[in-house]
């Protein structure tokens, strides 16, 4: 093989299946290392209630992260998720007031978020603008809409059955975990088992090649943002139930956590590279850090530092293993 390698035109080296696995899931080893460390440092870490609590705490961010992963894989980015979360929450409050029905509140919330996802998608697919800038603009607008509809007020939810969606348990497992698992499975099937997923990877990997092969680039891009909106809608239901309130000021900075989870999980910022299980690893790592630090009573400033370090680690690993970037 080496005699065929080209100067300057080198596309990469030989890779066995093992090193492909390392490249994609290598960060999982770091997660395992962290867990082992925490197991030793505090016996409370491995309590079943604690592990469930971790899953519980990452559920909201996790749902958003899966949607973000689909968007980034297609070569885009969605900065408006935090605002969508708030707007979704506000809609729940209004719908519960208006109809008292949990189902309608959930459906409307998810529908509204999906709708704004569609707006993002159409804007970006149609015009050659930078996703960063467009979703920054929608981030502001959507938050404003949330404030407008709510009048700026936070509203406590009195519907106990609704809050149960977020904090209740089924078969001993917090409901939030079911939500997260459902989104995980849907994302996995979408990205790894359907044509849409294949096209998403293609558009993110090389848009020109995708176009030349007849891939429906427009609908792939739009679709990725619609999915992101959908996931954020689900997250909004979960969030509102957990804090028992409909608030227009929540979600600020949540896009950062979602992006961090994706990047840590091996999603390439340039597009075309990601795995759904990897994304899950990224989500869990953030949760484990927070939980571990809190159990140990560590200053919260360290948590933020550690999160930043993790992102750097993931980027460095990505750079060394994916030379194209």
């Amino acid at each position: 093989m080496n005699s065929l390698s080209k100067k300057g035109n080198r596309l990469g080296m030989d890779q066995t299946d093992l090193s492909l696995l390392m490249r994609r899931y290598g960060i999982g080893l770091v997660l395992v290392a962290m867990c082992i460390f925490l197991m030793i440092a505090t016996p409370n870490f491995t309590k079943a209630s604690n592990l469930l609590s971790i899953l519980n705490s990452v559920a909201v961010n996790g749902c958003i992260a899966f949607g973000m992963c689909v968007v980034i894989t297609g070569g885009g980015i969605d900065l408006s998720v935090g605002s969508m979360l708030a707007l979704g929450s506000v809609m729940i409050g209004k719908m519960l007031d208006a109809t008292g029905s949990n189902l309608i509140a959930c459906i409307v919330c998810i529908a509204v978020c999906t709708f704004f996802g569609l707006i993002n998608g159409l804007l970006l697919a149609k015009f050659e603008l930078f996703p960063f800038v467009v979703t920054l603009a929608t981030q502001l607008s959507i938050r404003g809409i949330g404030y407008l509809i709510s009048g700026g007020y936070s509203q406590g939810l009195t519907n106990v059955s609704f809050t149960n969606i977020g904090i209740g348990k089924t078969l001993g497992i917090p409901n939030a975990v079911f939500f997260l698992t459902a989104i995980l499975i849907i994302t996995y099937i979408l990205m790894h088992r359907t044509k849409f997923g294949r096209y998403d990877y293609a558009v993110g990997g090389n848009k020109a090649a995708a176009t030349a092969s007849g891939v429906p680039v427009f609908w792939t891009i739009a679709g990725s943002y619609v999915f992101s909106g959908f996931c954020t809608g689900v997250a909004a239901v979960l969030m509102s139930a957990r804090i028992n309130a409909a608030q227009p000021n929540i979600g600020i900075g949540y896009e950062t956590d979602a992006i961090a989870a994706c990047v840590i999980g091996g999603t390439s910022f340039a597009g075309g590279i990601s795995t759904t299980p990897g994304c899950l690893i990224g989500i869990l790592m953030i949760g484990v850090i927070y939980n571990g630090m809190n159990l140990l009573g560590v200053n919260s400033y360290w948590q933020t530092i550690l999160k930043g370090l993790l992102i750097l680690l993931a980027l460095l690993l990505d750079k060394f293993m994916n030379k194209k970037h």
Partner: protein
Amino acid sequence: MDSNEYILECHGLSKAFAGTKALTEVDMMIRPGTVHALMGENGAGKSTLMKCIIGLLEQDTGTITFEGQPYKVKNPAEAALKGVSMVHQELNVEPYLTIAENIFLHREDVRGPFLDKKATLKKAQALLDEFKFGMPAKTEMQNLPLAKAQMVEIIKAVSQNARLIIMDEPTSSLDSEETEHLFQTIRDLKAQGKTIVYISHRMEEIFQICDDYTVFRDGHSVGCGRVADITTADLVTQMVGREVKNIFPKVDCAIGEVELEVKNLTGKGFKDISFQVHKGEILGLTGLVGAGRSETVSAIFGLLPPTSGEILLEGKEIKNKSTTQAIAHGIAMVNEDRKQYGLCLMRSLRENISLPNLKSRQRGLLLNKKREKEECAQYAKEMTVKSAGLEIEALSLSGGNQQKVVLAKWLMANPKVLILDEPTRGVDVGAKAEIHTQICKLAARGIAIIMISSELPEIMGMSDRILVYHEGKLNGEILRRDILSGVVTQETILAKEFGQ
């Protein structure tokens, strides 16, 4: 004209962009089962015509007939469905998808809403085996060498039942061995009844592999016919519109003392390399791709320091840990990929020419724009850069002129040693000759020049001495007089490249 005689016919095609006429009443007729050469300088209209055929552009007037039927497509995917495919010069592949996924992109097997990955993989593997590809279909594209990736594009075209395959400069990044392999593939495709449109600047290839030709110049089709009935000189005349006497205008100049010497230089990809370059001398380095030429000069230029050995400049040992140090020592290098390494395409000519020279030419805190303009204009003129002024973007120049800008940039730096890596790659015939003239001019100034080229005629025409590389080591030195006298031929040099 019997319509069954031709597989593709273009009549009266015209295309204009914002006032510039890219194509004017172009005619082209391609016989089925032939390899048809498309020739012409850069900007002559070849790629515009190809884009119309493949569906990336729509012609303003004129008709295209394919296999006897009127032909009009809206995009490359539609063209592929009709049997017309293109293998691009800058490969258009998905780097992170596998070979199988690339070949069957948008044509995947499905079971209900889900992908049937096994079926697609099986189909792809069968195709690869047919072509004796040698690598599994689940390899990621980015792990393939360029030649193999190009083969995948060809296989993809064949799998889409392409009857006409357009190849745009397919050998520009291949070495002799891979080129031969490609030619064999082309002959196999021809035997299967496929038609190839072959775009290339390399004359000897045209005569090696092509049956017919069409020549473009300034947006017009100016000549066509059988390759067997024409000579190189005539082709060049048609392309350039004037007689070009000598493509390799080597002007001998005085060769002085040793400027640069490397002793037992070893590094990644090369071992125990020793040679000397003299003032005013053009030293040619030739060899198969990956043989170690680029790696050696990268070491000299400070891009990738060697692991052992010495580099001596004017008798004194130097160590270049970075390109900044190399340039400070007076060593300059023109990289083979000028778009990536040679130019800031979005910036003006003036900014490009002055870039490495700001440190030495501009003393004060603020830039002396007036002086910069004068000096850059001077050097641009000396390298005969043709452009509408110094302030236009480098992007808008032709390949040949871009290369001249790069030369001007380094000329201004007044180097002692100038390394040129594939200096006329992607440059059309007319500009090639001009660049060669400029290179000789530089030599005449006393600069020691090391030139790497994969085009044997170029190396043989321009060098005072040639060093042949084989798998990281030197395998022979050839003097100019032996080439001129005919003792050493292309075959001899090729044999040495292969290790004899």
